[in-house]
């Protein structure tokens, strides 16, 4: 064994606290070490050059580099060894003497001694290292985007524009998500539909994008580059190849009293319907639950009036399977169901206590009131409106503990819109804080104050009816007084929560969710759109509350990751994977249950044991799915599973060395 040790000064970062020359001298005394040296900056070009030539001149077969965290430069040094020497790049160990030593110690003697120990441990581990080899896995250049809100639409457009096919899956009958329901968007107050619907039709017309509405992911198997995804497209009862979207059926359908989801229950729709005029796909579907023909066999009006004969009452769900190289999760959010949580706000009993999303519909020119601000109960113009912020948000006792981020701004927007349309009206905004960090955001809030909105700092503790109005009671925490505001309408700016079914989706995709239920990114700062499952990416509110600019930016970032993956066309496998020693495996299944990536399974294996042929159940690692997390190697009681590159033996040797 010929081990070389290279100790880095990192300028004064390490050398300031650690006597690197002494560390290099001490290293020479360790078993197997035949060469040691120091470098000013090992990662620099001359530093790398000197390491490589030392490897060649001294015929080194293992290398320890004592420098910064392996997170920083392990990949750099691996690449260097692979490209510039004949050594296997996995015969390398990094001793972290910067983050874990020089940066946290002041005393030079102590720091130097600890650095010597860390180097000794790395030497012990490198002695157990074995050559590892990567393989290239092919990548199916086709992306699946789950969720057709603005996040999903933007990601799909960006990927498709780079020339790769995309399937955009939306479980409602139209794409658009929450954004198409909004009236205007802060801070520029451009009409939401005017900027969202062109994107929707762009997606519909893009030859690289296939939109599947009323569709959900049924199951997912496989790994980055080749996910096999089964989709269930619900019966639409309308043949989209024949339907021209003329809309005659909608006008004739006798079932007209169904609350419109799009208008948040403030208007009604028919059983055969398009949720809104600009829907994409621009064709109707039958809501089977309410359709008379499908429920009781009587009616069939739409079939009679349809000029192209597109109605199919016998339509069934379609299940298809397709291979994708990458998956984008853009499943967005719902608003928290405040009625179950806030009894003191009437729990939904007072019709004039509405949500922000209902307000968006009321203020919208194509909404249920044609843009006139009329309250739901008696369709009169509210002269006093109270806006309550943080309903459900930042309220760990009743709702969620996090801030929903967009509501401070859209509350200001709502106040502005109300005062604009009801010039003689009064608008109170109850708030906990005003959080308006963003380009042009604080200016927008200031303008709302100038519009005359009255901001009261405090939570509303009770809303009760009085006469034909409502009284909002709360404490103004700045003056300490209890305030009672007689209002004609109350708007609750409710918390964003993960969209329903996120838990099921997470387990199908094997991705993690945080305590609040939003999908977890691989690293909050450095890998914000990746998940811990390679090949699965996050965009929009699915990852956490955010507004449209942030959502679109994130969708673009996701697209660039996916395009990068597809452009490469293949991925190098990580060889630091779990490996099973079947002779020790008793097939107990502990590893299968504990693996977060579904990478382990049980198989029947034909083995030779004690010169006998036996067939036993043993575990098997799927190398495409394994991420090398090591959970299985810990769960395995008999140590049948080991993590290549982090073998039990190597770790044990490190500990042994430290204890000497």
């Amino acid at each position, binding site marked *: 064994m010929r081990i070389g040790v290279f100790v880095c000064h990192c300028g004064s970062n390490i050398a300031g606290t650690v006597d690197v020359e002494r560390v290099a001298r001490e290293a020479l005394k360790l078993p197997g070490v035949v060469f040691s040296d120091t470098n000013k900056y090992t990662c620099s070009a001359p530093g790398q050059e000197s390491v490589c030539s030392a490897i060649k001149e001294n015929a080194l077969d293992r290398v320890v580099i004592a420098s910064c965290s392996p997170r920083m430069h392990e990949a750099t040094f691996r690449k260097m060894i692979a490209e510039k020497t004949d050594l296997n790049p996995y015969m390398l160990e990094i001793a972290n003497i910067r983050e874990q030593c020089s940066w946290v110690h002041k005393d030079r003697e102590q720091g130097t001694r600890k650095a010597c120990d860390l180097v000794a441990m790395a030497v012990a581990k490198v002695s157990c290292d074995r050559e590892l080899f990567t393989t290239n896995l092919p990548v199916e250049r086709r992306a699946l985007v789950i969720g057709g809100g603005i996040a999903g639409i933007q990601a799909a457009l960006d990927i498709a524009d780079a020339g790769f096919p995309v399937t955009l899956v939306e479980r409602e009958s139209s794409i658009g998500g929450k954004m198409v329901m909004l009236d205007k968007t802060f801070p520029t107050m451009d009409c939401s539909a005017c900027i969202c619907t062109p994107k929707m039709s762009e997606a519909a017309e893009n030859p690289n994008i296939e939109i599947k509405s009323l569709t959900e992911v049924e199951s997912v198997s496989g790994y980055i580059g080749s996910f096999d995804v089964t989709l269930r497209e619900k019966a639409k009862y309308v043949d989209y190849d024949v339907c021209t979207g003329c809309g005659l059926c909608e006008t004739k359908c006798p079932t007209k009293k169904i609350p419109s989801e799009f208008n948040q229950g403030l208007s009604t729709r028919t059983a055969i319907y398009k949720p809104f005029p600009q829907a994409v796909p621009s064709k109707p579907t039958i809501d089977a639950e309410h359709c008379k023909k499908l429920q009781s066999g009587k009616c069939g009006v739409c079939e009679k009036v349809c000029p192209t004969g597109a109605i199919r009452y016998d339509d069934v769900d379609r299940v298809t399977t397709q291979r994708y190289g990458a998956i984008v999760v853009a499943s967005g959010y719902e608003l928290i169901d405040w009625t179950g949580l806030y009894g003191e706000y009437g729990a939904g009993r007072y019709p004039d206590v509405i949500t922000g999303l209902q307000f968006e519909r009321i203020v919208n020119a194509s909404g249920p009131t044609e843009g006139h601000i009329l309250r739901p109960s008696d369709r009169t113009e509210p002269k006093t409106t109270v806006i309550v912020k943080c309903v459900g948000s930042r309220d760990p006792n009743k709702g969620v503990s996090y801030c929903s981020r967009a509501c401070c701004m859209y509350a200001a927007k709502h106040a502005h819109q109300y005062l604009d349309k009801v010039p003689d009206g009064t608008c109170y905004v109850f708030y906990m804080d005003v959080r308006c960090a963003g380009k042009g955001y604080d200016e927008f809030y200031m303008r709302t104050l100038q519009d005359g909105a009255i901001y009261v700092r405090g939570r509303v503790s009770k809303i009760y009816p009085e006469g034909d109005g409502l009284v909002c009671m709360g404490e103004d925490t700045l003056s300490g007084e209890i305030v009672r505001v007689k209002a004609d309408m109350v708007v609750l700016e409710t918390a964003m929560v993960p969209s329903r079914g996120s838990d099921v989706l997470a*387990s199908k995709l094997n991705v993690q969710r945080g305590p609040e239920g939003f999908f977890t990114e691989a690293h909050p700062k450095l890998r914000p759109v990746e998940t811990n499952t390679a090949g699965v990416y996050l965009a929009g509110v699915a990852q956490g509350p955010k507004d449209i600019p942030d959502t679109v930016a994130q969708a673009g970032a996701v697209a660039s990751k996916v395009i990068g993956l597809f452009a490469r066309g293949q991925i190098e496998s990580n060889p630091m994977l779990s490996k099973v020693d079947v002779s020790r495996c*008793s097939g107990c299944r502990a590893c299968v249950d504990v693996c977060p990536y579904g990478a382990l399974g*049980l198989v029947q294996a034909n083995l030779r044991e004690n010169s006998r042929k036996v067939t036993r159940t043993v575990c098997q690692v799927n190398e495409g799915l394994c991420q090398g997390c090591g959970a299985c190697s810990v769960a395995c009681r008999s140590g049948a599973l080991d993590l290549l590159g982090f073998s039990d033996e190597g770790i044990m040797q490190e500990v042994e060395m430290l204890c000497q």
Partner: protein
Amino acid sequence: MTANLTQQIRDRARDLLQSGTVSCFIAWEPARFEHWRTPVTIESPDEVDRIVVDEWCDQLIAKYALQRRGDGRIGMVARGCESRAVERLVADRQVSRQDVYLVGVGCTGMLDRDGGAPLKKCEECQRRNPVTYDEMVGETVEEPRPYRFGEVDRIESMEPEQRRAFFDRMFSQCAMCFACRNVCPACNCRSCFADAERVGWLEKDFGLDASRYWGLMRAFHTGDRCIECGECERACPMGLPLMTLMHKQVRDIDRLFGPYEGGGLSDAGPDPLRSYRTDDVEEFM
């Protein structure tokens, strides 16, 4: 246990062997001294008269099923503890339930071969009747479900130094004979970490460090799967109170993850300490 139980079991064993329902039948037979019993595997109907089933059958026989894997269906007398051990082996995928034929008996506790006092493990027993069986011989018995955490309470109330001293004293007497492992129905690995020489988890020398490490690792490896049969404690030649650690874990797991009984007893999914769930709240990450 009724006086004619032995005869009833012999009759059933004979029938089962004769009809070919089972290929062998595991029970007990008298050993060298009075009140000593030893496990026996009966291979033919002519040998069934060797069987005795009485209040001196102190060993758990379920684990012997592992030695007969692949040899056809295995017959066995099953008290509460045997039945739970079989469930354990099934959950650990070492046998399938169809591979064993359980002749269930209700059990009122066994006596110590030296002196005749009731065995501690039987006094703490939570399941005197089999939890699974293919047929029952005799009546089921009452389940008193005694409180079994008294010793855990006592140790928990100690000061940390006292507690450390207690366990140091316990482990310093360990002879590292691995009898606890060999009898344990949850210890069914093909190869034990303690024998992994190359990695060297466990030193081969004696000493408090090694025996403490062995004791704790054994407890952890079986913690969420312990069926509380108390065999480790009974088999320990040094008389160490091994069940205290097991009971402590049983109760902690119960409190942290909900009602729990030695794994394997419910179909609720994998054992609590070896599962991965996406709805696990990862507050620490």
